[in-house]
């Protein structure tokens, strides 16, 4: 058949079609996705105008179906604060040779590192090479501080790691070249401050270090600056002048270090005193969860857990500036529409709420649309931290994240291990719904269900899985499979209905976490069974939970404890903690110092092997 004939036939069928068929019911989800994923909402980055518009839209939709603000709340918005970025707050550096007058530099020649502590510091200067410390456990000795005393001094280090080292050596050194790790190493040796320079033989030679987005809120416990190559030159020239020697170029110094030879040492800069100020302004922004409820039909006084909750995150990546964008070079900076992630889940939640709003149920149905999920489950964590409804009154939480791209009728259900009721409830509801269910008992998922699981709430999460447009601008509304998205909403409605109307609340089962903890360092070989809380600002490591049966639980640690020291390493933040893991040995007990409330406690923890 020719192309034209084909078109003709198609057109004829098209015209004939309404005569034979009923029009399909309008999609319950399509309009929501199209609004939320539209250009106008600019990718719904937490704290952005687009996110505000999205929140307003969601609240209006919830009001339209008769959902109400939670008891005692004026509106449906639960706002919370988070760190959205940082900039320099007036850092300075003054170099004095001998007792002479100082040579002054400020922004942009010097600039705080994004994780710097604020502070005014003065002291003599030690150049510590690349500032690298490789733990003994790596079977490769490299310690930039081996021959140096940096106590009460200001440490100057090179960025990156030795440029000319052979590949295996580079592979090891690279892992310890993170600036946070370098800052920690300096701090732990008593340094007052650290200044980083990008060597002339390295990429970005001589440039200061951009203040990256850093959601890990806590500082590194030490003032930390970067300086230009010119400032470094002034520093080294001053030292040479003072010592009466020829001016060694930074290039020469770097070249000696670049072989990777661990015996090339740093040195004190004689007669130099620096005075510095480090100041970081962290941009605290506010984002909003949208939370509402459908009241139960009658009294809930006989129910131990009078609530059942559904939810999804509605925020996305904006224009992708935060690092979790997977946009190609050509797409970079474009609006990340987030139709599947997670306009689809938001639409499913709204559709379920609409369905349930027309029925009578024995439990209150809590409806929550989270913000700031993409930057670390911050919205749902805020809910869990200061719950507007007591968490032990929530019978179950059902989550949706990326439910718009069904493949081969497969629907993945996560967190099914959190209660023995789920298999029965799912089997029954799915007989009519007809999905090819893939069950994943594990609730430790990178979505809001993890927050609820850690709070001991029975939970369940639906997803149709990842795809080629994941976290890219091309995740658009036209690619969503609305027919199947509506089917998912129907299935989930049946599930929520059964929980909402069954007297007994589902029993909670604690699922042991698979031993791949989130760690920024590949190759960590031990686990302590802790679940860090990434979202709350504290000095130390705040535990969001502990793995069932894991070393931390056995050591008596629990959610809410703040670990401040492990194996003699002080812990100021999650990064220190990650690095400290490197020092631990399987089955060798170490001392852990932690705060429980105001009380300082100690325990012994025996690390286990990671599977």
């Amino acid at each position, binding site marked *: 058949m020719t192309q034209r004939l084909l078109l003709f036939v*198609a057109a004829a*069928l*098209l015209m004939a*079609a309404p005569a*034979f*068929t009923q029009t*399909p019911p309008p999609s319950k989800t399509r309009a929501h996705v199209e609004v939320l994923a539209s250009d106008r909402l600019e990718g719904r980055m937490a704290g952005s105008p687009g996110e505000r518009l999205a929140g307003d839209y969601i609240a209006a939709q919830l009001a339209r179906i008769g959902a109400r603000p939670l008891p005692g709340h004026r509106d449906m918005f639960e706002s919370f604060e988070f760190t959205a970025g940082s900039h320099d707050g007036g850092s300075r550096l003054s170099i004095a040779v001998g007792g002479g007058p100082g040579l002054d530099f400020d922004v942009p020649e010097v600039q705080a590192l994004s994780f710097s502590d604020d502070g005014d510091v003065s002291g003599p200067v030690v150049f510590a090479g690349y500032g690298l410390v490789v733990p003994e456990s790596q079977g490769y000795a490299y310690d930039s501080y081996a021959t140096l005393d940096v106590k009460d001094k200001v440490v100057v280090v090179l960025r990156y790691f030795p440029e000319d080292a052979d590949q295996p050596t580079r592979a090891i050194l690279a892992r310890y070249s993170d600036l946070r790790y370098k800052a920690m190493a300096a701090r732990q040796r008593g340094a007052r401050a650290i200044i980083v320079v990008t060597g002339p033989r390295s990429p970005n030679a001589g440039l200061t270090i951009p203040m990256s987005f850093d959601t890990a809120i806590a500082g590194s416990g030490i003032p930390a600056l970067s300086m230009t190559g010119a400032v470094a030159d002034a520093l080294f020239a001053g030292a040479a002048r003072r010592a009466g020697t020829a001016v060694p170029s930074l290039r020469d110094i770097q070249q000696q270090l670049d072989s990777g030879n661990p015996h090339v040492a740093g040195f004190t800069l004689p007669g130099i005193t620096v005075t510095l100020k480090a100041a970081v302004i962290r941009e605290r922004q506010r984002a909003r969860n949208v939370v509402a409820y459908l009241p139960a039909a009658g009294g809930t006084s006989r129910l131990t857990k009078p609530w059942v909750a559904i939810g999804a995150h509605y925020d996305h990546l904006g224009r992708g500036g935060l690092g979790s964008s997977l946009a190609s070079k050509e797409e970079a900076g474009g609006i990340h529409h987030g139709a599947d992630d997670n306009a689809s889940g938001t639409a499913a939640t709204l559709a379920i709420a609409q369905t349930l709003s027309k029925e009578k149920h024995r439990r209150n149905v809590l409806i929550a649309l989270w913000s700031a999920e993409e930057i670390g489950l911050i919205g749902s964590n805020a809910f869990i931290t200061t719950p507007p409804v007591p968490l032990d009154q929530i019978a179950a939480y059902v989550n949706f994240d990326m439910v718009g*791209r*069904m*493949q*081969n*009728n497969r629907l993945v259900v996560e967190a099914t291990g959190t209660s023995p009721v789920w*298999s*029965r409830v*799912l*089997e*029954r*509801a*799915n*007989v*009519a719904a*007809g*999905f*090819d*269910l*893939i*069950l994943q008992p594990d609730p430790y998922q990178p979505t809001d269900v993890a927050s609820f699981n850690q709070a001991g709430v029975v939970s369940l999460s639906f997803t149709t899985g*990842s*795809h*080629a447009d994941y976290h890219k601008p091309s995740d658009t509304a036209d*690619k969503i*499979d609305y*027919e199947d998205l509506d089917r998912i909403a129907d299935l989930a409605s049946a599930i929520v209905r059964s929980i909402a109307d069954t007297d007994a609340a589902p029993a909670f089962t604690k699922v042991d976490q698979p031993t791949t903890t989130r760690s920024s360092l590949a190759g960590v070989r031990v686990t302590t069974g802790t679940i860090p809380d990434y979202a709350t600002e504290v000095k130390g490591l705040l535990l969001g939970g502990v793995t069932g049966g894991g070393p931390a639980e056995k050591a008596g640690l629990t959610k809410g404890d703040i670990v401040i020291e492990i194996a003699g390493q002080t812990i100021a933040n999650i990064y220190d903690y990650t690095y400290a893991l490197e020092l631990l040995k399987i089955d060798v007990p170490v001392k852990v110092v932690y705060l429980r409330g105001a009380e300082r406690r100690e325990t012994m923890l025996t690390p286990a092997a990671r599977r």
Partner: protein
Amino acid sequence: MVLRIRQLGVARLGVVLVLALTVGVQAQNAGQESTLLSRIRRLTVEGRRSGEGYWAPDGKSLVFQSEREPGNPFYQIYTLDLATGDTTRVSPGYGKTTCAFIRPGSDQILFASTHHDPKSKQYQQEELDFRASGKERRYSWDYDTEYDIYARAGRTGALTRLTNVRGYDAEASYSPDGQWIVFTSMRDAYNRALSPAEQKQVALDPSYFGEIYIMRADGSGQKRLTSVPGYDGGPFFSPDGTRIVWRRFDEQGLIANVWTMKLDGTDQRQITNFGSMSWAPYIHPSGAYILFASNKLGFENFELYMTDIEGTKEPVRVTYSDGFDGLPVPSPDGRRLTWTSTRSGGSEGQIFLAEWNHQAALAALKAAPPRTNPPAR
């Protein structure tokens, strides 16, 4: 409607492409399965394992076996209402049960059970203890000599014992008119004097003595239909009630083939000669072809196949998924298929359900080449 279908087509194609990027092999397989099977889904979720799902004559419910209640590590029998999703246990709840079937024109359900054995509960505990010990067992199916066939009345729940002899009686199914039952029995190993070689065989594997029997729906008139060494089992009636389809193992129990015969045991015809373990045959309601499972592609890799009713064509492969696919049962209207599979992971089966494309099945059989190895008649 045209528009919707076209959009769907585009979406599916996109999906296939994405899958091809991520899990290439699976995508291809799903594509191959989709000619005959669509909307594949896992039907049973609860419990450790489920299998042998057989349709009610009206197609509105299934009867199946499942291990899903604490305290009993053996199968019990359940019905599943396909409108409400409700499951109801119809077997006693203790002992071992297997192989249920719903009686046409009646509310009766038959199944095999050992619950009359006073040691039933002791065996349950022993099995639970054994599992807790973490040891591995070589054989997963035992041919408990206590198995007898029962019919359960739907309204009263009263059980009628239809067989009562030593030796495994199970794998029973009703004729389309509901008046007859065809089943497997190993009674031949216990009701006569055995030669020393036969005694050894009983100890090793009594299924060697499995033969096909027929009886009236009330258990009367029990009559043996086969008498060839090796496990004859899994019999079902043809849709018109004139023939029986079953599978016959060789003496070693490694090769099995699909056979059919008349209700009196005459005119036994070998339908497949596939050189593998071809078993669990079931005739499509059209009467045109037989669905069965075979490990043609590897000892542990069972897939569903089909062959025309006379076995003149080379079998056509139906499933293309990792793991076990077996025990196919078409719905009474011939438009759906249930089967037991491990495709969702793990080693234990669950029941799957899909839409069945009968026209595509006929076309595929028509296009299939003639059988390469016709058995000698």
